């Protein structure tokens, strides 16, 4: 489950040293940029700023990737929000997604003792002190409850919240010299909320119970929470047999099996969005457990987002409006969703609308045929990624609604999974498409 943790700076002074070095390099780089700025021709200003951002991202990544754990996770979240990380660095960040320091057996006992005032052998009939999977900012153990039921017990490293706060504080200091700092600052606040929520297991248990009782999809299993052995730092749930999506893909499943799983994931997303108005906003392949009968177990409810009904009602019209080549209607909808800032130069406005509409057209491409074949359209996601980068250039004139960012990120994550599956997916559905 875990990768080697050699060279991972653990102590505060080591982390401080890495942080200090990175901050010094970033400040030096910023000083160089600001001192040369007045002497640059106007047309070179934008290019030079882009270059500055890119170089800063490289310095930041080099420094903070040494810290791993929460710092790296923040880095990853920032990378999703801001495209200034070069592609190679983005790929590295995605690879190291679960590199949090492992928790040893003595510490596992301590965490359980702190949580329940008793040792694991008194809390469970059996507890496997070796973790079987990494969770975001924690790890998962198999246990047997006193009533004989198999459990998956998720635990988190002690004081993880404080570490998140400290690491975010470091990020704020590092990134202050960047010209895009106001936007980054806003994103960091959002990331802090998400990470703190991810470490609140009481909230996660409530969300699991909500999905478990409201989803009502027989092919999707949401594990039941074992409330007797759950608290803010420990979350016990019924164990789901099966393999994570990535592990399952390694068994070379048939095309039909992959199509079935993709259809289920799509159904899960649409039903939660349009009927429950709540989405599981972390479509990480490790969060989907594929069972032998091709039903899917859904785990990790650390990142769940409730969306406003009025917002969803407007969003549902986007694909069909773009599909019908109704540019005015599409832009009207985006304005209603508060995507654009009000006062923009008319020439720039046309440019922004054109790019946003081209993105809409690309998105409608999934709905153009009855079934979209990812295997036959291997480059299609890349086109969308390029369009997102283009839209990002107008970030100062686009004031994205945070709900829109969440929805977009979840859809994108799901698309990536479909791409991985090389599946055929029926996108037209009763909520977004007229019968």
């Amino acid at each position, binding site marked *: 489950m875990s990768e080697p943790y050699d060279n991972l700076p653990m*102590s505060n002074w080591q982390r401080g040293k890495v942080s200090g070095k990175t901050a010094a390099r970033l400040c030096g780089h910023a000083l160089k940029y600001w001192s040369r700025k007045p002497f640059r021709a106007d047309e070179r200003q934008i290019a030079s700023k882009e270059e500055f951002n890119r170089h800063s991202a490289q310095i930041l990544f080099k420094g903070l990737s040494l810290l791993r754990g929460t710092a790296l996770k923040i880095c990853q979240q920032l990378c999703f929000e801001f495209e200034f990380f070069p592609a190679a660095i983005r790929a590295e960040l995605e690879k190291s997604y679960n590199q949090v320091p492992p928790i040893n057996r003595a510490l596992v006992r301590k965490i359980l003792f702190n949580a329940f005032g008793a*040792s694991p052998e008194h809390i469970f009939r059996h507890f496997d002190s070796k973790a079987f999977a990494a969770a975001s900012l924690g790890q998962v153990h198999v246990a047997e409850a006193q009533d004989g039921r198999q459990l998956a017990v998720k635990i988190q490293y002690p004081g993880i919240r404080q570490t998140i706060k400290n690491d975010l504080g470091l990020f704020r200091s590092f990134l202050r010299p960047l010209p895009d700092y106001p936007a980054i600052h806003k994103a960091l606040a959002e990331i802090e909320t998400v990470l703190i929520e991810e470490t609140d297991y009481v909230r996660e248990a409530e969300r699991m119970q909500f999905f478990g009782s409201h989803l009502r999809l027989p092919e999707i299993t949401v594990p039941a929470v074992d409330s007797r052995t759950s608290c803010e730092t420990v979350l016990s749930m019924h164990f789901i047999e099966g393999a994570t999506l990535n592990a399952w893909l390694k068994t070379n499943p048939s095309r039909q099996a992959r199509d079935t799983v993709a259809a289920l994931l799509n159904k899960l997303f649409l039903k939660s969005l349009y009927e429950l108005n709540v989405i599981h906003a972390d479509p990480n392949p490790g969060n989907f457990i594929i069972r032998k009968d091709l039903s899917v177990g859904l785990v990790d409810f650390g990142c769940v987002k409730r969306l406003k009904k009025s917002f969803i009602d407007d969003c549902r019209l986007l694909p069909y409006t773009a599909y019908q080549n109704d540019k005015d209607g599409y832009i009207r909808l985006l304005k209603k969703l508060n995507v654009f800032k009000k006062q923009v130069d008319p020439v720039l406005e046309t440019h922004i609308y054109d790019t946003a509409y081209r993105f809409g057209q690309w998105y409608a491409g999934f709905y153009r045929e009855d079934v979209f074949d990812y295997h036959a359209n291997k480059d299609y996601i890349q086109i969308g990624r390029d369009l997102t980068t283009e839209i990002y250039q107008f970030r100062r004139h686009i004031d994205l609604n945070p709900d829109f960012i969440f929805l977009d990120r979840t859809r994108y994550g799901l698309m990536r999974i479909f791409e991985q599956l090389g599946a055929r997916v029926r996108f037209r559905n009763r909520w977004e498409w007229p019968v």
Partner: protein
Amino acid sequence: MPTNAKTKQIRDRILKVFADRVVEKGLKATTMRSVAHAAELGRAEIYRYFPTRTAILSAYYHDHMVTCIDNLKRVDEFNAYSLQEKLQLFIESCLEAFLADREFVDRSFGAVFFPCGFNGHSVQAIREVFEQFVDTVFQAAIATGEMPPQVYQGVIYRFFWDYYRAVVVYWLRDTSEQFQNTTVLLDKSLELFCTVLQAGLVNKSHDLGVHLIKTHLLKSFGFMQATMAGIGSIKRNLFGE
């Protein structure tokens, strides 16, 4: 009731009463007489169990350490734990056992574990139990090949004893929720400590030191010996035997 059991019961009662009195009145104000009174013993009777206050104090910490070590034997698969896990669980168990008497430990730990003058012997018995446990854990790690045999083993045990005392003092000053700072400190520092041992860093430093001494210091010593012999020979030639 058998005599031994009764003796143990009274002994435990004295320890408990003593701890309570120290919390209430402070260490200095807790006299043998007041403890005997609170434990419902005669003034002289208490001396049959403990000759001095210091003896009661060291008995408390000695019993505490023995109990903690005994409890570790009941932990599932304890023998399969790594060196770090064993040491970490041992210290965590000690701290957990201190929890109920935290105030008492705060007031008395320094007097027992950082003794001065005539009280130095009071900690000896506790230290022996401690080092015996650490030795068992180290020997097991060496037997399984988890770490190489260490030179200066005694110095390492001494260092670990100092480390244990420092951790308890840190824990007593720790105000974080559920003493999380101590837990994290323990985790990180023991990982570093065990990495140093497993990498054979002490042995390698020793080898380097020996090499430097042999090739440089002892060589100079040889030169000095030859010089001294030369001077001796000149003296003999000049002044005779």
